[in-house]
């Protein structure tokens, strides 16, 4: 396969394969895909949450009935697992979102473009924005989200109170 064909082999056209198939790409592409998937889950949860909490303004019985309906649909464990998944989505989406705001709005930690012919160390041009501080920020965001996700699990699945 020629150099050009190999270079563009990973180009995928269309919405689904372009934004939901990050295989063969770098960590930032995986973060982008996960950001989209978690965002979609969160907007679906937001709509359901607003409709469910409407019952709190009707009466205490309506609120209990709404909570009971959720437990009946998915079971008490299913409810907590579902909330845990939504918590994970919110934590990742928020942490990665903060990284995106810092890099896209404030241009933090992405450096300046360099001329590849002046970079004697590598043959292939690797943009500085995909290395260095920005990559560390991405890893920090993921680690913080995972740690807080385990805290959420401890709270949801036990009677943990401070």
């Amino acid at each position, binding site marked *: 396969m020629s150099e050009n064909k190999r270079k563009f082999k990973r180009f995928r056209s269309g*919405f689904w394969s372009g*934004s939901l198939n990050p295989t063969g790409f770098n960590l930032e592409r995986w973060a982008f895909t996960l950001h*989209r998937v978690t*965002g*979609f889950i*969160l*907007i679906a949860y*937001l*709509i359901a949450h*607003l*409709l469910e*909490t*409407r019952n*709190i*303004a*009707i009466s*205490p019985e309506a*609120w*209990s009935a709404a*909570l009971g309906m959720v437990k009946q649909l998915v079971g008490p464990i299913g409810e*907590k697992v579902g909330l845990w998944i939504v*918590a994970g989505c*919110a934590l990742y989406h*928020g942490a990665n*979102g*903060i990284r995106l*705001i810092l890099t*896209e*709005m404030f241009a933090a930690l992405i450096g300046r473009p360099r001329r590849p012919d002046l970079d004697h160390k590598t043959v292939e041009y690797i943009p500085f924005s995909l290395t260095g501080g920005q990559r560390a920020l991405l890893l920090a965001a993921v680690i913080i989200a995972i740690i807080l996700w385990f805290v959420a699990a*401890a*709270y*949801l699945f036990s*009677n*943990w*109170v*401070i």
Partner: protein
Amino acid sequence: MLIHYITAIILVVALTAHLLLHSPFAGLDFESSLSFINVAGNLKNLGPLFFTLLLAAVIHGVNGLRILLLELWQNKGWNLFVNIIAIVLIVVLIAIGTMTLIGVQA
């Protein structure tokens, strides 16, 4: 995108406050934090916080959905359709949330 970033920043702060009310730091376990008295009390006492959260979450979420949908196809008709649906969805969801907040105050 500026609206998206600004609502994101507001959402990080407001959602953290909302989640802390259902966290170990609120002094209640998970099941107790969902009781009618606790939830209605929070909505009543922290109305401005929840209204801010409602606005930021709905605008940020629906705008994100709008961005996804606009990437599906690119033509004038689809753009107009998606923009109208987004505005309607924002208005409807904010209305539902506001009615809940007003109903709890009563």
